[in-house]
């Protein structure tokens, strides 16, 4: 086996200590990286060998938990999926996710997203209650396929870090929350769309979206939030026409 190759990488990391700093600053670390490393490995090296005070979130190291979202050279990325060898210059700038307040170093405050996600009721609301003895809610493969891609969302919030609309209008419900509402609305077993529409079809809901499409470009799980939001707009527009032009169609 050949000897593993190491490359010295300069990691320029944003630091912010809420107890002592009034504004963030940058600190550069020189890290001997293996070619197959990801940015998260480099951060772990810093934490273990160079500076134990560096704070960042991570857990699974396999793009499943959605914890290690950050800006890598200005691009929203999962640190566990950002391969060092893709950054040829040997210099990598690492910052906390854009559009979120910085708690400390690379750790951001995510309460806003959690509140918004909960507000769209991202769970099955069955059309009618039925006892467990009546058996499961059945679904065909075609019905599953209709929403399956949205189930791949890992709530990493990179779509919020990429969305300029969220940056400019922080009240915007945002890509992942609306996509999750769409995921359940599209589910043949679900009957909760009317409840979700109150939030989703409001001014600060889907209508704040101007289809920049950045959310879908940065999604590490290849979910298409931008597509989901446009479909929600189409469905909400049809609702409006039904209500105003064909009131007798109303349930």
């Amino acid at each position, binding site marked *: 086996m050949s000897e593993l190759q190491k490359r010295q990488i300069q990691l320029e990391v944003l630091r*912010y200590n*809420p*107890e002592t*700093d009034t*504004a*963030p600053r940058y600190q550069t670390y020189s890290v001997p990286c293996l070619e197959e490393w990801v940015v998260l490995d480099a951060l772990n090296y810093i934490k273990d060998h160079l500076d134990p005070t560096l704070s960042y979130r991570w857990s699974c190291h396999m793009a499943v938990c959605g914890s290690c979202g950050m800006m890598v050279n*200005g691009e929203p990325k999962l640190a566990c999926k950002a391969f060092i060898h893709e950054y040829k210059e040997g210099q990598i700038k690492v910052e906390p996710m*854009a*559009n979120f*307040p*910085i*708690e*400390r170093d690379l750790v*951001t*405050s995510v309460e806003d997203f959690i509140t918004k996600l909960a507000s769209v009721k991202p769970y099955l609301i069955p059309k009618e209650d039925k006892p467990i003895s009546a058996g499961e809610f059945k679904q065909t*493969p*075609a019905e599953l*396929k*209709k929403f399956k891609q949205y189930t791949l969302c890992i709530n990493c919030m990179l779509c919020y870090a990429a969305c*300029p609309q969220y*940056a*400019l209008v922080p009240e915007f419900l945002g890509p992942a929350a609306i996509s999750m509402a769409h995921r359940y609305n599209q589910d043949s077993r679900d009957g909760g769309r009317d409840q979700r529409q109150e939030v989703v079809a409001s001014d600060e809901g889907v209508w704040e979206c*101007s*289809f*920049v*499409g*950045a959310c*879908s*470009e940065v999604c590490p799980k290849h979910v*298409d939030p*931008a*597509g989901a939001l*446009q*479909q929600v*707009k*189409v469905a909400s527009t049809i609702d409006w026409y039904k209500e105003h032009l064909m009131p007798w169609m109303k349930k």
Partner: protein
Amino acid sequence: MNSKPYVREVSKTTWFLSHPRYKRYMAREVTCIFIFAYTFLLVWGLGALANGPEAFSGFVESLRSPLGVLFSLAVLVVTVYHSLSWFIVTPQAMPIQRGEEFVPGNIIVNAHYGAWAVVSLIILIWGI
């Protein structure tokens, strides 16, 4: 939990300069101004038509002026860009599921190009 998370301000006027994808988006949005201006031109033409044959021929004459031709050409280029930028995202907004599978995006996009060509052809033939 600390009491003072740091909020990074975003410039309301220059935010789109920070990434190529935002510039691309703004380019698409700016095309609307040209299309808006052209609809005004059409309304102006309609007004001229209502004012009689002389006013209308004056309007047509102004369209034939170098400035008029330049404006029409600019609007044509910008409108083509506008249309293409929207056609390529149609599969996201209007996915079609047949049976279990979704219809490939390029078929939906090409159907739009096809319809665009047919409508353009009809208008051209009708105009001549």
